[in-house]
């Protein structure tokens, strides 16, 4: 096949082109022709098709995501906002932190190990590209039914992939989620978060400026893997049509990425780059067009200089390849030599592939012939925008009317006891140690708290003991019942988890996992959830700094539960005063903060005991969440509380069980006046936490709560070696522990 040059395309306006196969719609193809004033070349078509895919262009979601900017709360903490590789937050003492969460859902279903591994690899490069040293990862995961045979294939592969890649990079895994629900059967959700640390002056941006500056591609050679992965894998509904039609996935090389990290950090230290971008989805198409689009001039690239793993690749394939572990830097000419030296030191291949030009176009050449000549913005930032129709589904009313309050409740102590054991041993509430023990949580020597604590806490300065805390949360069941409230509940839970460890919540990143945007019901869920999240962030004063959207998570007509996963980042100026979750001291008092109402819609209890999903999720009160957080932070700062654990799915009994097991001590609980034992134990009212307080601090602490208007109830004492609810039942810790820990290993054995 002869080369389709720009010249050739002008001469052959009527050549048929595979725009449809590349996932473009007819009007999109027409627009490309209009932008260029001719038909695109094959290479241009390849670039537009990947960059205008749902995954890269956010064409269905961006009209909704705009709210995160429009409703952004006033804050001095945000140094870099949405739009860059990741947002950057000021955490004081001259330090900045960048974090982001991303999805790798579809690839992880097809090839669990590599899909999950490259998901970690991709998010780590995003963080690195901001100028930061990556310091930790987290992995919110969702799978189909725990006892489904395919879960046995997908889950161990995903966990091995997350661990295989992250462990090999030397990044501690400090938290995540493992959730099972049949709705994720053909669409597991593999989200990955990375957090990185830098000094304010080290922030780097993805832009190509300064005519004459060189474009350097460095890292792995470019191969034929993952071509079209973006458009095919991430954007279209995946239906299992047998092995032969399965699209290509990429294989990751964590060792190469580790070299890339160290090499890049050394390059940053010597201030050798003017702009930098990682190569992720859409590979070189994305990196070159985004760098050029954000910069001041144009860019010229000699594509045949790109180091290849497979010499037979066509220019189109090189532009679309999603080979992992590559970065692209803009470097002033007199710094190129030193740049290449550092790459050589780390055994990283680096090649000058082009330069920044005076012009305004992105021009790509292949053996001297021009094959791309486009306005970079039209590729990178001016893709199509859809106002997809959305409508509240007709089944929503019936779902909400199916109130969980009418479900049969346990009456006797014996029934309560049985249901407590069923709850703490259910796959979603059981210990996730089988998963988390496969992750290195110690490497880098700065892990202060990791799973199963409420949030991961890492020290970022060993001299001052400054640290950051992060938690991720999402509840697809709540969000299905009410997408607006569900998104806010996810936010509230992550916020509460951060505060529970004593850190002050500062900022948010989110991964929005939904079904097909072409279904108006799904689009409504999306619209409601983004609206809820944006309003929630405004109310809590925590801006969204970046995130990711994953659509088309559905099999046939069946979409997953709408699943916004929210990550909240907080700062703690002295990690010595972090609050752990363990009930570690006999005799300390257990206090319940917040109010308990009869709220069972979407609850773990309704799922475990009745396999029911209906009604309304717990009410959201963000002012209350703020107050609770303030109390938890003050309690930690003033040394009044020795343990804290937030209440979420599973309610009070789940939280108390976890804190007891972690500390190795039992608890004696008393049902407070005005509550029945069942509601006390199983309700999932939001805005609550349990704390352990030394007797000497009780008065000071309850006075503080009283003065600020936060309800506080003394519910028991840390004591013995059983969890006992007076007058109802007692369960020995050993029995609780055995039930809590046996479930996941048994399912995966």
């Amino acid at each position, binding site marked *: 096949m002869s080369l389709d040059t720009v010249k050739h395309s002008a001469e052959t306006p009527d050549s048929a082109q595979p725009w449809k196969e590349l996932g473009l719609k007819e009007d999109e193809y027409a627009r490309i022709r209009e932008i260029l004033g001719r038909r695109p070349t094959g290479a241009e078509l390849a670039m537009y098709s990947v960059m205008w895919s749902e995954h890269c262009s956010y064409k269905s979601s961006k009209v909704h995501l705009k709210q995160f900017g429009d409703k952004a709360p006033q804050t001095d903490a945000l140094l870099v906002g949405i739009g860059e590789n990741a947002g950057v937050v000021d955490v004081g003492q001259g330090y900045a932190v960048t974090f982001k969460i991303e999805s790798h859902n579809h690839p992880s279903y097809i090839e669990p190990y590599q899909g999950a591994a490259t998901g970690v690899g991709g998010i780590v490069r995003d963080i690195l590209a901001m100028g930061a040293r990556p310091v930790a990862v987290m992995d919110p995961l969702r799978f189909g039914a725990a006892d489904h045979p395919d879960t046995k294939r997908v889950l161990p592969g995903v966990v091995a992939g997350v661990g295989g890649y992250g*462990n*090999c*990079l030397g990044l501690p895994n400090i938290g995540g989620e493992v959730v099972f629900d049949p709705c994720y059967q053909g669409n597991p959700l593999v989200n990955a978060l990375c957090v990185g640390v830098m000094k304010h002056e080290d922030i780097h941006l993805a832009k190509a400026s300064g005519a004459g500056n060189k474009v350097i591609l460095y890292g792995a050679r470019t191969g034929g893997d993952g071509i079209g992965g973006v458009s095919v894998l991430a954007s279209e509904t995946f239906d299992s049509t047998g092995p032969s039609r399965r699209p290509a996935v990429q294989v990751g090389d*964590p060792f190469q990425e580790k*070299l890339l990290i160290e090499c890049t950090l050394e390059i940053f230290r010597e201030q050798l780059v003017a702009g930098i971008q990682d190569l992720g989805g859409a590979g070189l198409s994305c990196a070159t067009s985004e760098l050029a689009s954000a910069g001041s001039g144009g860019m010229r690239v000699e594509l045949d200089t790109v180091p290849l793993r497979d010499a037979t690749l066509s220019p189109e394939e090189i532009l679309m390849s999603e080979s992992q572990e590559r970065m692209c830097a803009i470097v002033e000419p007199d710094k190129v030599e030193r740049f290449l030296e550092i790459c050589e030191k780390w055994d990283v291949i680096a090649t000058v592939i082009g330069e920044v030009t005076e012009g305004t176009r992105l021009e790509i050449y292949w053996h001297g012939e021009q094959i791309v000549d486009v306005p970079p913005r039209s590729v990178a930032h001016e893709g199509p925008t859809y106002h997809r129709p959305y409508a509240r589904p007709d089944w929503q009313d019936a779902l909400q009317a199916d109130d969980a309050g009418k479900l049969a409740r346990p009456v006797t102590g014996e029934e309560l006891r049985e249901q407590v054991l069923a709850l703490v041993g259910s796959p979603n509430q059981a210990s996730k140690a089988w998963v988390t023990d496969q992750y290195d949580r*110690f490497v*880098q*020597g700065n892990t202060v708290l990791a799973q199963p604590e409420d949030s991961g806490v890492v020290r970022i300065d060993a001299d001052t003991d400054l640290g950051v805390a992060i938690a991720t949360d999402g509840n697809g069941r709540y969000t299905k019942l009410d997408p607006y409230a569900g998104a806010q509940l996810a936010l509230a839970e992550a916020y509460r988890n951060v505060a529970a460890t004593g850190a002050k919540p500062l900022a948010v990143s989110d991964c929005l996992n939904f079904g097909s945007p072409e279904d108006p019901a799904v689009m409504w869920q999306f619209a409601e959830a983004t609206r809820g999240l944006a309003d929630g962030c405004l109310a809590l004063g925590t801006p969204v700094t970046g995130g990711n959207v994953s659509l088309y998570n559905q099999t046939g007509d069946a979409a997953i539960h709408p699943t916004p996963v929210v990550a909240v980042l907080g700062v703690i100026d002295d990690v010595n005063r972090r609050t752990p979750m363990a009930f570690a001291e006999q005799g300390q008092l257990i206090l319940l903060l917040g109010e308990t109402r009869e709220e069972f819609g979407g609850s773990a209890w309704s799922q475990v005991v009745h396999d029911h999903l209906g009604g309304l999720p717990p009410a959201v009160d963000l002012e209350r969440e703020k107050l609770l957080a303030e109390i938890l932070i003050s309690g930690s700062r003033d040394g009044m509380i020795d343990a804290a654990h937030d209440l979420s799915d599973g309610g009070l009994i789940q939280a108390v069980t976890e804190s007891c097991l972690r500390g190795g001590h039992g608890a004696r609980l008393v049902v407070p006046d005005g509550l029945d034992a069942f509601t006390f134990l199983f309700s999932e009212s939001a805005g609550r936490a349990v704390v352990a307080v030394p007797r000497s601090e009780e008065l000071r602490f309850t006075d503080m709560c009283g003065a600020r208007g936060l309800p506080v109830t003394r519910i028991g004492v840390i004591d013995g070696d059983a969890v006992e609810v007076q007058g109802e039942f007692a369960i020995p810790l050993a029995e609780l522990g055995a039930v809590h820990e046996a479930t996941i290993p048994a399912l995966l054995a």
Partner: protein
Amino acid sequence: MTARIGVVTFPGTLDDRDTQRAISIAGAEAVPLWHRDNDLKQVDAVVLPGGFSYGDYLRAGAISRFSPVMGTVIEQAHAGMPVLGICNGFQVLCEAHLLPGAMLRNTGLHFVCRDQKLRVETADTAWTSDYVPGQEISIPLKNIDGRYTADERTLDELEAEGRVAFRYSDVNPNGSLRDIAGITNAAGNVVGLMPHPEHAVEPLVGTGRTDGLAFFTSVIKKLVNA
């Protein structure tokens, strides 16, 4: 005199900076060493830290063992310099035949990260003199290729000569033969173990215990008194 302890960085080494921090906390000067240099910068002892050098591709430690720096380390180890291999470093020492045996994939086939109990079997090495034989310590373990293996004769020899330095004491996490977690050479200057003492030197991070500090104080005492 301040002891100077070198910490080797291979491509893919992960716990090098953590090991340097542990050495400083113990009171010595940590000296970074680079795999391509055969110069050991006049250090008095060397630590080969943990990680996935060369991605642990082929076999853990197999490629690093041929690095230029290892040429000098092997030479100096034979001459009596204290050398400690932690995790991946232990694997490198085995591949380099400074210690007998080999490391295989854990029997559970998974990466294992846990707070591991160990029994100290000998204090007669450069790196364990601050422990007492029989002492129980707890330090983090994190690896996927940690199953220590050697033939029966070698194992009997190790036992007979008191060269098993540490044994797993609560559970055997990886199927290591005879619960072996760490061994020493006959001279007692070269020690390898799978768990990570450098992650048990500060009360605030890691497992919150400092049971690993004695590795570093042991060697520092030896060097300073030498």
